[in-house]
Structure formats: C-alpha cells, structure tokens
C-alpha cells in the first residue's frame, strides 16, 4: 500500500487503471472463458478508436480550464458523419470525404469556441445548446434514416486488420495520441494549455493568448470528433444520425478516469488512452456476457460519479 501511496500523478493513474483493467479481464475470464479471442481484441480496439479520439478532444478542452467542457462531442460526431454523406450524395468527389468530415467537425467545434471565448457564454450552457442543435440537425436532416453509400476504398481501410489490430487504430488513434502527448509534454504550446488551466489570470499576465488558445482547442476537439465520425463511416459502412449518442457521457468519464482534473490544468493523454481501453473492455465484456446494453449507460454514469467522488476523497486524505 505504501508504494501505491508514494506514486505521483500520472504514474499513479496509470497503475490504478492497469490494476482495474486486470481485475475486469480476470472477472470476465472467470465468468466466461471463451470471451477472450483475437476477434474480441479487434472489436475492443475498433470501438476504442472512436471513443479515444472523442475523449482526447474532451480532455484537452477540460484541461484548458475556465470551466471548460464540451457536451456537444456526440452531436459533432453524428452531424459530421451525416454532413459528409450528404455532401457525397450532392456530388462531392469521394476522395474529399475524409477531409470534409474532419473539416465539418472543426467548424462545429470552432463555433463552440466562438460562443465560449468571444461571447463569454458558460461552456456548459453553450455546448449543451449546440449539443441539441447538432444532434437534432443530424436527425432532422435525414429523418432518422441511415445514409448508405460509403466509397469502397474507405471501407477497405476501415475494416482491414493487421495482426488483429484494426487499421484505423494503427493509422489514426496511435499517431494522434503520440502527437498529442509530445505536444503536451515537450512544446511551449502544451505548457500553455496546462498554464491556462492551472491559473488563467497568471497565464494571461505572462502573455499567453488565453482566448485564442481555447478557441483553437474547441476547434481541435471538433476536428477529433470529425475524425471519429470518419472512422465510424469507414467501419460501419453507413452514416447513422445517432452514432454519437451518449459519447458526451462516455468521453467525460474516460477523461475523468484518465486523471484529467475537472477544474483543469492537470492530467495527461496516456491516462485518457488507458481509461478508454478500460471502458471499452468493460462494455465489450458486458456485451459478451449478454448483459442488456441499457446497463452500459448506467455503469458508465455510475463510474463517472464514483471517479469524481474518489478524486475528492483522495485529495482530502493527502
């Protein structure tokens, strides 16, 4: 116990997450030994790719403080997937589809950023409003119907597997997290984000453009959600207007589990990544055990509340 208590910051988070993951895997193995096959690993990583990108966006927005939160991530995923497919139907050349999805996401995210930084609307209210606008638009524009017609070459990329690791995970999730980690750890930009989140006023006083940085982060979060939308298209083969459902809750849970402080200025992307894997393993495991999917939402919600309470309690003990 003493060794665990002596661990600091991200090491502590990673150790705890790894322990939890081992517990989850162990329980699953005992309950249903046939669960673990390479196919399950592929499924877990495929689901993780979407959640990981969205959670990363959520994490950087929360990290930059100022009560930052992005409740609209799920809406952005749905709307950029639908927007891409509708643009394709309207005659967009198919090689532009990836760029269109990411760009649409970035624009939607930047709109959040403008509301928060230029109009100084509270992030939670601004993104709650845009959450309903974006996800409502995705449903209203399609009448709730899935949009088919994803180009074949995209499906090949989205569904191919290299030694049981899905291609999108290898080519998008890992590079994006690596870049995010490097930027946060070793560049001035990364230091700025922590500084803004830790103490906005002093960050402002040393000349960091707080508002512009936050605007960019909201745009970036949107772009990551757009990339997640693209992956959902390439994997599922159709644009579903409700694909982003509950992603705001799951991404927040992953970010909090991963050690991002809700008040900003603390946390790292490694923890978020580990938390995503843990969450998706838990969800996939429950699915394999034939637990009804409605339980997933409740378990994720309970985890979120539990993590926040545990965080407060552990701070009190120190």
């Amino acid at each position, binding site marked *: 116990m003493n060794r665990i208590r002596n661990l600091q910051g991200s090491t502590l988070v990673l150790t705890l997450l790894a322990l939890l993951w081992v517990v989850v895997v162990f329980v699953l193995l005992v309950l249903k030994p046939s669960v673990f096959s390479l196919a399950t690993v592929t499924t877990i990583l495929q689901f993780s790719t979407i959640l990981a990108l969205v959670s990363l966006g959520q994490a950087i927005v929360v990290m930059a403080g100022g009560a930052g939160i992005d409740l609209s991530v799920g809406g952005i995923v749905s709307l950029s997937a639908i927007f891409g497919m509708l643009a394709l139907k309207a005659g967009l050349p198919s090689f532009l589809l990836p760029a269109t999805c990411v760009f649409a996401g970035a624009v939607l995210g930047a709109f959040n950023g403008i509301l928060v930084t230029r109009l100084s609307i509270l992030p939670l209210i601004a993104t709650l409003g845009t959450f309903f*606008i974006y*996800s409502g638009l995705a449903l209203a524009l399609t009448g709730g119907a899935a949009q088919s017609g994803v180009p074949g070459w995209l499906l090949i990329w989205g569904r191919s597997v290299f030694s049981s690791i899905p291609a999108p995970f290898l080519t998008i999730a890992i590079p994006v997290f690596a870049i995010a980690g490097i930027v946060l750890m070793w560049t001035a930009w990364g230091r700025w984000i922590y500084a803004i989140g830790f103490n906005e006023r002093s960050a402002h006083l040393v000349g960091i453009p707080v508002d512009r940085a936050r605007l960019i982060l909201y745009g970036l979060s949107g772009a990551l959600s757009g990339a997640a939308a693209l992956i959902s298209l390439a994997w599922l083969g159709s644009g579903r207007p409700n694909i982003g459902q509950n992603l705001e*809750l799951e991404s927040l849970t992953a970010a909090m589990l991963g050690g991002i402080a809700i008040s900003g200025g603390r946390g790292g992307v490694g923890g978020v990544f580990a938390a995503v894997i843990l969450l998706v393993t838990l969800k996939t495991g429950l699915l394999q055990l034939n637990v009804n999917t409605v339980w997933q939402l409740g378990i994720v919600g*309970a985890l979120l509340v539990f993590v926040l309470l545990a965080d407060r309690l552990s701070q009190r003990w120190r």
Partner: protein
Amino acid sequence: MRQFRDGVFSMTGREWSLLAACVLAIIVFSVASPYYATSGNAGTVLRNSIELLLIGLGMMLLLAMGGIDVSVGVVMGLAAIGVGRALGAGVDPVLTAFVGPLTGALLGLVAATVIVLGRVPAIVGTLGLLGVYRTAIFVLLGGQWLSGLPTGLTVLLGTTILGLPIAAYVIALAYLAVWVALRRTPFGLHLLAIGNSEEKARLSGIPVVKVRFATFIISGALTGLAATFYVANYRNVEMTVGSTLALDAIAAVVLGGTSILGGKCSLVGTVLGVLLLRILQNGLLLVGVPSLWQPVVTGGLLIGVLSFEVLSNRLSLLQFRWAGK
C-alpha cells in the same frame, strides 16, 4: 436591489418583451395555420406547459444558485414510474399525488449528496446520474410501457372548485411557495448570495451546504410534482420519457431572464419563458415542421438569446462611451 422588493407578478422590460413575443408568436401562427387559434389548441399548449413550468421553477432556483441539473427529465421519469405503480396498485389517488414529490425530493437529496458533499461540479455530477437513472428507468419498466393506468388521479386533479380545477390551485400554490421562499425568507437571500459568490457567502456566515442541499431537494420535489401531473395527463410512462425536458427547462429559464452565472432570477420571466417555448413548439408543429426539428429550435433559441444578450450589452456599453465623449 430591486430583486429583493419583487412583487408576486412584478414585470420589468424583460418580462414585457417576452409577453410581446408570446403575443406576436400567437398572431403569426394564427395567420399561418387554420388549426392554431382554437380553444382546444390553447388548452393543449397550457396542459403541455404544466410539467415544464414546475420543473422550470426548480431549475430557476438551481441556476440562480449557480447550480444546474441536467437529469431533471429522468428524475421526472422515475417519479412518474413511482406514481404510476402506486396508482396501478390501487392506492388512493390523494396519496399517490404525494408519491411524485416525495420520490423527487429523495432523488434531489441523492444529487445534493453527490454534488454538495462530494464537491463535484453540478453539470458533471448530474450527467453521471442521468446515465444511471436512464438505465434505472429501462430496468424498472422492463422494456415495456407503463400504460392504461387508472383515471383516479386525472379525475382528482380535474375536479373543479369555484370554477377552477384543483390542478390550477396546486400550480398556483407551487408558484406562490417558490415566490415566498425566494423573496420573503432568508433562504431566498442566501440562495442568491451563493449564486453571486459562493466564497463570499460562506465568509459572511451563510450556511452554504444547508442552502444548497435544500435547493436541490426543492427542485427535486417540484420535478416530482411535475411527474404527478404527467401521469394524470397521459396515464402512461414510456421509456424515453423526458429526454429533452432538461434542455427545455434551461432554455425557458434563461429566456425568462435568470442569469446562468447565478445571483439573479425572475419568476414571472420563467412562466413566460415556458409559455413562449411551448407556444413556439406547438405552433411550428401545426405549421408543418416535423417534430425532429424541436431540439434544434430550442437549442438555437437558447444560444441565440444568450448571444443577443451579450452583444446588446456590449453595444449599449459602446454607446455609453461615445455619449460620454
């Protein structure tokens, strides 16, 4: 300091312009749709406003205190299941009417425990509870609708005394109770002080924890009361119950002039905000806009009003400066 001398129905510029917006919307929709200006439709709008009004009053208190609750929709769903089950089991309608507020208050206590004692931001805490409660509704209903409930509660709330249904008295009583609590008791002052600055409120000796607990419980009880009306009105509980109620309530309260930063609120504004929202939603439906567009319209209204406020504030500040020179 005007806010401390507020009458039961005092109106300011904000409320008058909301009233004007309501009248304008009614005129426009009456011209656009022949089905709009009927007494039957007016009744529908008013009936549909009841739950939102009660929940809106609770949300107004929370926002004025600097809190928020995005789980009100599912809290109402859970309370409605409680009321429905009690009604279905043949409990006396007068007693079942109290099941709603009691369940709501209990769930408010749960939220307050997590948020106040756990010192968790209200938005994140209630978002987590939203997930848990949504699952609880699915599990309690077991994949089916609760439907075909007895009419006891409907009859009870529809019984007229002196020409008005009991429902109207209950709503008026709830409104008055909130008004008294907010404008005529130390509790109201404390609540607004916490909304202005929690730290200053604590330093000036206000029992912050107690007041925040009480506010969450009151909001929960009002939401539970809304569930009683919901069951009396529709006599069924579906699985997706209340999925946009939280947004509707926040939008209506913000429309009504309550500050999302806390410390300022308007009771009449909340009533008018609820009415305007329901008039718009009902009117757009009758004009032929599919109901899928409703969340887009509500969300747009919320963002639009907030942006307009900020921009007009800046404009008047600019004019003030020019006039000064």
